[in-house]
C-alpha cells in the first residue's frame, strides 16, 4: 500500500485542567512542528483549523494566530476533524500546498453552559420537542440497546476506557452516555512525500438529518465509510491500533464493535484506544484529531492503524482513516 501524504509530526494536549487553551494549542503545534523537524511554522505553507467557531468569545478565524497562522494560508473547516483532515490531504494532493499544519482544539469543560436551543437538531421539528444533543444521544442508545449492543457491554466499554485513563468508573447511565468532557488541542504536520506515518486511505460519509430516520447505528456508518475506501481490505489486515472518538461511550462501543470482531479483539485489548479514546477525552469537533495523533504515535513507523471520527449529535458525520505503510515521494 502506498501513499503520497504522510504525518510528519504530531502534538497533543488533553486534560481537564490544562490551563489556557491558547497555551495548549501552542504547545501541541510546537510538538507537531518539532516532530516534523521544524522549530517554527515557517516551513509550513498552509494551516487548516478545526473546532468550535468561537474561541474565548472571538471568532476562531481571527484568533488563528495562536496556531501560527499569521502570514500563512489559512482554511477553517470547523465541522469535524475528519472533514478538516480530508481537506488538508486534498490540498496537498492537489498541489495547493506541500506541508499543512492541521490543528484543532476545543473546551469540552465549557459545554455545560451551551444553549441547547441553537445547536444541531432541526429547529422546526426536533428542537421544539426538546431534542438537545443529550436527548438525541439517549434516543440512539434506546434504539440500539438490546439489539445492536447491550447497555452492559457499552457500560463495560466506558469503564474499560476510564480505567485505561486512570479514572474511577461512573455508575448508571452516566457510564455509557456521558463522554469524558475535557479541554484539548491536537496538531499534525501533513506533508507530501515526507518521512513519517503514511496516510494510507480515508473516506467520509454523512447522514444529513438529525435525528436520523434510520437505525442510528454507528457501526453501519463505519461500514458505509469503509465501503468508500479505495482499499477497504486495509481494515481487515491486522492493525496495530484503533482509536475511536464518538459523542458518547455507547456510540463509540457500537461504532467499533464490527472492527473489533474483525480483529479478534475485545474491549480490553490494549490496541483499542491506547489513549482511552473519546470516551474519556472529548473536546468537541476536533476530538478526532486527537484520535489520529494517538494512532500515529501508537504505530510509529511500522504497521497499520485506524482512526474513526464520528462527529455530530449521534456520530453521523463518520470518517474512517487508515494510517501506515510506505510513502511515495512526489
Amino acid at each position, binding site marked *: 500500500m502506498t501513499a503520497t501524504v504522510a504525518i510528519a509530526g504530531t502534538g497533543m494536549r488533553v486534560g481537564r485542567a490544562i490551563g489556557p487553551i491558547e497555551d495548549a494549542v501552542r504547545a501541541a503545534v510546537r510538538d507537531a512542528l518539532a516532530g516534523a523537524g521544524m522549530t517554527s511554522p515557517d516551513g509550513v505553507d498552509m494551516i487548516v483549523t478545526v473546532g468550535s467557531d468561537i474561541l474565548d468569545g472571538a471568532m476562531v478565524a481571527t484568533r*488563528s494566530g495562536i496556531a501560527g497562522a499569521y502570514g500563512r494560508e489559512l482554511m477553517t473547516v470547523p465541522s469535524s476533524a475528519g472533514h478538516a483532515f480530508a481537506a488538508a490531504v486534498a490540498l496537498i494532493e492537489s498541489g495547493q500546498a506541500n506541508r499543512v499544519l492541521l490543528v484543532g482544539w476545543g473546551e469540552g469543560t465549557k459545554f455545560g453552559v451551551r444553549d441547547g436551543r441553537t445547536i444541531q437538531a432541526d429547529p422546526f421539528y426536533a428542537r421544539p420537542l426538546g431534542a438537545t444533543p443529550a436527548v438525541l444521544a439517549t434516543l440512539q442508545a434506546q434504539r440500539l440497546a438490546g439489539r445492536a449492543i447491550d447497555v452492559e457491554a457499552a457500560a463495560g466499554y466506558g469503564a474499560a476506557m476510564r480505567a485505561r485513563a486512570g479514572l474511577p468508573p461512573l455508575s448508571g447511565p452516566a457510564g455509557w452516555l456521558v463522554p469524558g468532557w475535557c479541554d484539548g488541542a491536537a496538531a499534525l504536520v501533513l506533508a507530501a512525500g515526507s518521512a513519517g506515518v503514511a496516510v494510507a486511505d480515508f473516506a467520509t460519509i454523512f447522514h444529513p438529518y438529525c435525528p436520523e430516520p434510520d437505525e442510528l447505528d454507528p457501526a453501519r456508518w463505519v461500514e458505509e465509510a469503509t465501503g468508500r475506501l479505495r482499499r477497504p481490505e486495509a481494515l481487515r489486515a491486522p492493525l496495530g491500533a484503533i482509536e475511536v472518538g464518538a459523542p458518547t461511550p455507547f456510540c463509540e462501543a457500537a461504532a467499533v464493535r464490527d472492527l473489533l470482531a474483525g480483529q479478534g479483539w475485545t474491549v480490553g485489548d490494549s490496541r483499542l484506544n491506547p489513549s482511552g479514546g473519546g470516551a474519556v477525552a472529548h473536546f468537541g469537533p476536533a476530538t478526532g484529531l486527537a484520535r489520529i495523533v494517538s494512532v500515529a504515535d501508537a504505530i510509529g513507523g511500522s504497521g497499520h492503524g485506524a482512526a474513526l471520527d464520528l462527529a455530530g449529535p449521534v456520530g453521523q458525520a463518520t470518517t474512517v482513516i487508515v494510517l501506515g505503510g510506505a510513502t511515495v515521494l512526489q
Partner: protein
Amino acid sequence: MSGERIAAVLGVAQVPMRTRLSDATYADLLGRVAHGALADAGVDAKDVDGLILAMAPTSTLGIDEPQYWALAGLPGASHFLGRVHTLASSGLVAFRLACAHVAAGRAKRVLVVAADLADEAPDLIGAIQTFANPFAERHYPGSAATAHAFQMAAYMARNGIDERVMAGVIVKNRANGALNEYAQLRQAITVDEVLSSPVLSWPIKRADASPRTSGAAAVLVGPPSDGQVAATGFGSYANHGVSGARMVPGVDESYLDASDLAAAAKRAYAQAGVGDPVAGIDLAEVYASFGIIELLSIEGLGLAGQDCAAQMIANGEFHRDSRLPVNASGGATCGSPISATGLIRVIEATLQLRGTAGARQVTRTPRRAAVSAIGGLFQLHDVAVLAA
C-alpha cells in the same frame, strides 16, 4: 504548477438578494440554488459526489451546525465534505476546497452551497464584536462601520482627496447593480445622494455600506475541460492580528494599505501564471462591503498603484465599459449575504468569462478574472484567478 487549470466551474446559481426572503427557509434556499447549479451544468443529482457548506459566523444567524438539519435532500449530501467558516470569505474558501477535492481526484463533482437569512439574525453587531479581541478591544464601540471609517479617513488624508471622489466607487457600483437582476439595490445613485445619506461613522455614510442581505448561491465544481471556466490559482493570507492595533499607523499598516491582500494575490498570481496583473487580468469581482474596501482591494490586487484607485475610478477606469471592469455586478455594496458573498463573486466572474452575464455583461468579454474576499476586519484575505 503555473497557469494549470485546477478545476472547472460546471454550474452556478443564485437567488435575487433581498432584505427579507420571507418565502423560504434556510434549507429551502440551499435547495433552490443547489438544484439551480445542477440545472445550469446539466448534471444529474446522483452524479454529485461532494458537498461543501460555506457558512460565515453561525452566531450571526443564530444557527449552529446547520449541516445536521439543512442539507437533507441536497445533491451530494451523503458525501458531505465539511462546513467552511472564514467569515465573509467563506464562500470563496469553500470554492477553493471544492477545487482541491476535485483536483486531488478525491471527488468528481463537488457542490458548494451557501445561504443567509440576515433579517432573521438576532444580532449582527454582536456577531461582529466577536471579530475583536475580547480582552483588548471589546471595550470600544466597534462595528464594521467604525472599523472601516478608520481606513477611509486615513485613505482620504493620505491622498488629499475628499468625500466626493471617494463616493465615485459607490456611484459606479450602484449603476452596475441597476443592471443586475440579482442585486438587492437596483437604483443608480448620484454623488450628492451618497454624500447626503446618513453618516454611520464619519466619513462612512449609509450609502457607502452594503445593505443587510438575505440570499443564497451555489457553484458546482468538476474536472477541467475545454470551453469551461476554470480556476487557475488560489492564494490566501491570514492576519489574525488584533484589529485595533493594526489601525495605528507605524504598527502594522496592512489594515490601511491592503498589503496583506497583496500577499494573497501574489500567491494566487504565481500559481495562475499571472506576471503583471494589469496586463493579465481582464476583470475583477472583489468582496467589498464598503466602498473603501473596494479601493484597497483594487490596489491590493495590483490593478492600480497604491493610493490611486479612487482617482482612477473618477477618471472612468474600472467601470463596466472600461478595459478592466471591477464589480460589474454592482458588488457587495449592492447586496451581500455574508456566507454566500464570496461565492457570488465567483459566480459573477464566471458569468462574465462565459459571456452570459446578460444586461451587466461587460463590453469586452474577458479571458481572465481575479476574485477576492476578505474575512473579518481585514483579518483574512483570499484571492482566486479564473480563466475562460
